[in-house]
């Protein structure tokens, strides 16, 4: 029983991070109607940025997260402004393909600069943990969970209550009307993609803290983010939290009861199954 409880807690902690990973993908998908296949690669870049700041500049990884976020925001803004805005009205397949091209380029550059070795961000306190009743909680994972959930909620409030957030939601609903009310689509699209990239960047930094990064983690992470977005729907960032927690718990339970090598079978099997059974998403509108 204690083991099951521990596994559930582990799954929930992992799920919070998954939610943050998926949030950026869901945001970009919902507003720009682009399924960003380079999203996982942006997570990977965020992981390396945090890793660099920690190992080369000696900045505490948690303190480095805001810097990573700003850097990734700039990268995302530039990608949207310089490349994706050029094809935004092309058929869906073209935007899908071009983001895959970006993923290939980012993975290549990461491999070129950082080699294909696995890297982990290991601050001094990496091994710390504390007990809460029968379960043990690793400090870093709890902190990562708290940041992930906090950012997801903050993003929701931002979209609901700020001027830019309203502009983003308006563009998602009706671009023409939003333009008439003075929203500049070029800027708002670039801002949205930048925000998505910044969220991916922070998720990547946290991922590097709780797991390992290498240049090729992007593809599977994109697919996982997509599963979560499908489960949670695009309407509401809180749906993403539900999706993330669900995936985290399912993966942990699979690892316990079927075997650790079946984790990916479970998460991608769910992707295929959910799509086949309920392509419109489990909780809300998806496209």
């Amino acid at each position, binding site marked *: 029983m204690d083991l099951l409880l521990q596994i559930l807690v582990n799954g929930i902690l992992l799920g919070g991070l998954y939610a943050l990973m998926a949030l950026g993908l869901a945001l970009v998908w919902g507003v720009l109607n682009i*399924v960003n296949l380079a999203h996982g690669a942006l997570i990977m870049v965020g992981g390396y940025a945090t890793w660099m700041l920690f190992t080369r500049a000696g900045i505490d990884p948690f303190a480095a997260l805001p810097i990573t976020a700003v850097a990734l925001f700039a990268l995302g803004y530039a990608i949207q402004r310089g490349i994706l*805005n050029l094809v935004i009205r092309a058929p869906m397949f073209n935007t899908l393909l071009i983001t895959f091209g970006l993923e290939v380029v980012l993975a290549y550059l990461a491999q070129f600069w950082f080699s294909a070795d696995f890297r982990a961000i290991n601050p001094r306190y990496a091994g710390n943990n504390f007990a809460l009743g029968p379960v043990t909680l690793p400090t870093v994972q709890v902190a990562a969970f708290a940041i992930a959930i906090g950012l997801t909620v903050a993003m929701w409030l931002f979209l609901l209550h700020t001027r830019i957030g309203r502009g983003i939601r308006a563009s998602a609903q009706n671009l023409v009307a939003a333009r008439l009310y003075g929203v500049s689509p070029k800027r708002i699209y670039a801002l949205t993609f930048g925000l998505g990239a910044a969220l991916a960047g922070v998720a990547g930094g946290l991922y590097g803290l709780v797991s390992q990064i290498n240049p090729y983690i992007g593809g599977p992470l994109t697919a996982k983010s997509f599963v979560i977005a499908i489960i949670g729907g695009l309407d509401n960032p809180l749906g993403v939290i539900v999706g993330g927690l669900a995936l985290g718990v399912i993966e942990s339970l699979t690892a316990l009861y079927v075997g650790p090598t079946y984790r990916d079978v479970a998460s*991608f099997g769910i*992707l*295929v199954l959910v*799509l086949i059974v309920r392509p419109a998403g489990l909780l809300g509108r998806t*496209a």
Partner: protein
Amino acid sequence: MNVPRVAGVGLIVVVPVVVVPLVAALAALPWYGGPVLLQFGIDVLLMATLAQGWNIIGGFTGYPSFGNSVFYGLGAYGVGIAMAQFHLPFWIGLLAGLALGVVFAGVLGLAVLRLKGHYFAICTLGLAFVMTAIVSNLPIAGSNIGLVLPLLKSEVLFYELALGLLVLATLTVFWLAHSRFGLGLIAIRENEDGAAVMGVNTTLYKILAFMLSAAFTSLAGGIYAYYITFIDPVGVFDVVLNVKMIIMAVFGGAGSVFGPVIGALVLSAISEVLATRVTSLASLFFGVVIVVAVVFMPRGLAHMSAHLRDAGWRYFLDNVRAHRL
């Protein structure tokens, strides 16, 4: 849409004057080309077959499959398991892989071909990841270590097999472009509801197209497995390979007969030249080609060569203008 319409007279001239001598020259390559050229030839022919296979489901039917690498992997594992585990001849493995791929496409097609757009693309992408994970857990497939096949040092055989398969695939696509079945697929691509109203059995047509695509892809995978003599799950279910077939088909002209072959040849040649200088540069090249091609020539070489003469450089700007914000 951009299927090149060869006029009746043109066809009579083009086939004997260009196509037949070209294929004959290619078939004779082992007798005048060096071993490097032969190996490059096998790679290009297999890639072209994969691009052509993708063309059937992605180009003609308009369903952008990211899961064709699954069929490739099944074909490779059909040969791998038959030869390494049961010591059966290559031909039986090839047929087993073919059967695996086609049946898989048929069963799965029933479910996934109901999805459209993003959903179909990502669902097939997910399938590729699922298959990698499943095969990594199968002892009969060598788990995540892989299978070592008996070595056959006969590059001529592999070359001729690959060439034969490509010719067969291209003939099939040529037939598609001119048959009732193929026109049905194009109708599905252009407007699926409209095609259904006009009496096209869309479910059946889509599944048949998926199975046809799977057939060529799994055969190519089977040949590759015996040629390379080692297969592992990450290698043969590689999603990047799937993206390569897509970009070769799209670069050459998806939905055309010869576009994917030309796309595969051009891109493989450039990437081969790059790879001899800096090994890893080839993968960067593919990424850059995807981005540049989607922005400036999204309809491929076939469409570009038809319109470039009239429009000149404006052709590229017009493409950008048509799709930018």
